[in-house]
């Protein structure tokens, strides 16, 4: 077992925790242990204050007014876009489209690119690891266009089986869309390799980076992907803002997704000309304060360093897997090697229903997720209807893992018949 102190080498986790006001409270009379960051992360003061300050001093609609406040709001919002572009290594902030979340980013590509480019007989290649948000948008556009959805299989540990990838990639394959990290199993996929092989076969690539960008150093130019989608709220930012990165030539060639204000250059009663990138894809008044908050979140994570973030989470997941394995009747799902696993520990405790496990833990102040985690096909593949998931972030400490394990022993004593 690792000593608690040896985990704190790369990140000053106590200093990080002090930045998150929500963590210093009690729930059900116990200190809160928030172990559901894969669903949504908590927010540091820097983000909360940036949004507060924006509303107190700067708010006006963007890209419109010729008055000072509107110009200042526009500058803050567009500066956030530049910081996001830099954070993921995009060539230009024109390649950064603000959306509501990862789901909307993927739907944007499936609808705007898919409708213009997919034909009957074309294939969309996904993986069996995908979250519903990288499955359903493709199933919808496939039904509409006559294209077919195929899947890269996973093995019993939830690792992609890439031996058959070249056989799956044919001239019919138009796009390969896959998760950078599985939200259910924590599997980190070899994204750069998949992109390289997909490109060699002439297919475009989209990376669902909802669990990637918040936790792993991510550079779109090194990855070589065509599209990359992620959400603000899983990376210390607010809800209601997400990002679609797209290669400029592709975004230029795509028709708009939603129509409305801000996305047009000129409108007549007969038709309209589209605005330039990125605004062509941002119809209507955007989530301005949330954009400002996301910019602050990106600054916060950059300050910690994404290498340090990953190093911390690698140690935490290694410790969690080791401790969970000590508990009798625990079944852990997903890869056991911390090198290919993010901070997500998914398990079942004997035949105790995951809801019951979560309820016992909640009484101890420990928040975990129980259910299918928006990955029903993957649960079915593993023969499960539901599972429990503890997920970690920059503020997770080994003591919280210890409390999780104690909580599982408590659940075992309540449900004595659990085998």
């Amino acid at each position: 077992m690792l000593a608690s102190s040896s985990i704190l080498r790369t990140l000053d986790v106590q200093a990080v925790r002090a930045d998150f006001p929500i963590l210093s409270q009690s729930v059900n009379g116990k200190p809160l242990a928030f172990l559901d960051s894969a669903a949504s992360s908590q927010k540091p003061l820097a983000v909360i204050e940036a949004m507060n300050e924006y509303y107190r001093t700067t708010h006006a609609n963007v890209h419109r007014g010729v008055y000072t406040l509107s110009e200042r709001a526009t500058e803050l919002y567009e500066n956030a876009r530049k910081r996001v572009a830099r954070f993921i290594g995009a060539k230009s902030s024109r390649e950064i489209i603000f959306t509501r979340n990862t789901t909307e980013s993927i739907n944007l590509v499936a609808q705007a690119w898919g409708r213009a480019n997919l034909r009957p007989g074309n294939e969309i290649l996904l993986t069996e690891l995908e979250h519903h948000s990288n499955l359903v948008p493709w199933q919808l556009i496939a039904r509409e266009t006559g294209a077919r959805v195929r899947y890269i299989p996973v093995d019993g540990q939830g690792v992609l089986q890439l031996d058959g990838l070249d056989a799956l990639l044919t001239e019919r394959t138009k796009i390969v869309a896959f998760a950078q990290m599985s939200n259910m199993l924590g599997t980190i996929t070899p994204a750069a390799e998949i992109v390289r092989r997909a490109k060699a076969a002439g297919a475009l690539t989209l990376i669902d980076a909802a669990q990637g960008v918040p936790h792993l150093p991510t550079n779109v130019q090194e990855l070589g992907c065509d599209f990359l989608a992620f959400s603000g709220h899983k990376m210390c930012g607010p809800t209601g803002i997400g990002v679609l990165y797209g290669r400029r030539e592709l975004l230029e060639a795509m028709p708009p997704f939603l129509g409305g204000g801000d996305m047009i250059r000129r409108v007549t009663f007969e038709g309209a000309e589209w605005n330039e990138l990125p605004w062509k894809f941002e119809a209507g008044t955007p989530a301005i304060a949330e954009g400002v908050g996301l910019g602050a979140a990106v600054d916060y994570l950059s300050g910690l360093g994404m290498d340090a973030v990953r190093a911390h989470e690698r140690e935490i997941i290694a410790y969690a897997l080791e401790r969970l394995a000590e508990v009798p009747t625990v079944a852990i799902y997903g890869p056991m090697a911390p090198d290919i696993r993010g901070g997500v520990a998914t398990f079942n405790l004997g035949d105790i229903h995951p809801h019951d496990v979560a309820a016992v833990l909640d009484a101890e102040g420990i928040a975990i997720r129980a259910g299918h985690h928006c990955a029903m096909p993957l649960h079915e593949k593993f023969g499960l209807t539901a599972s429990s998931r503890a997920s970690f972030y920059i503020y997770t400490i080994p003591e919280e893992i210890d409390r999780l394990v104690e909580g599982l022993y408590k659940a075992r004593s309540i449900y004595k018949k659990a085998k």
Partner: protein
Amino acid sequence: MDRQGQIDFILDHYENPRRKGALLDAGASAQGSNPGCGDLVTMYVKVDPQTGRADVTFDGTGCTISQASASYLVELASGKTLEDILAIDRDDLMGALGRDIVEQRAPCAALALDTLHAAAHELDRERACHEIRME
């Protein structure tokens, strides 16, 4: 009942379910599920034509609250008329199971009741059709 007493009551129904098992000659049965968490219940109802009283059983798998709720409910409903069964409401059920324990898990707690009502409605409709035919 205090909170611990309420928890023990629920756990007792979960670990020692009452009237669990299919009713082979049921007049109606209905299946309900919460796909999000995998709770599954089937409710069986048979009405004695002489007395108008119901015999109710259940079968299922799922979390403690969903299964304890079904066990509690089949005991409560057995011996009642269809009208009385249809009159059992969610609020009474929540109160009986312990509101502060089940209110965060309302879909689990209410699954058996909604499913029982579906089966009872089916029987009620059949009876109405039968009466019309008899007239």
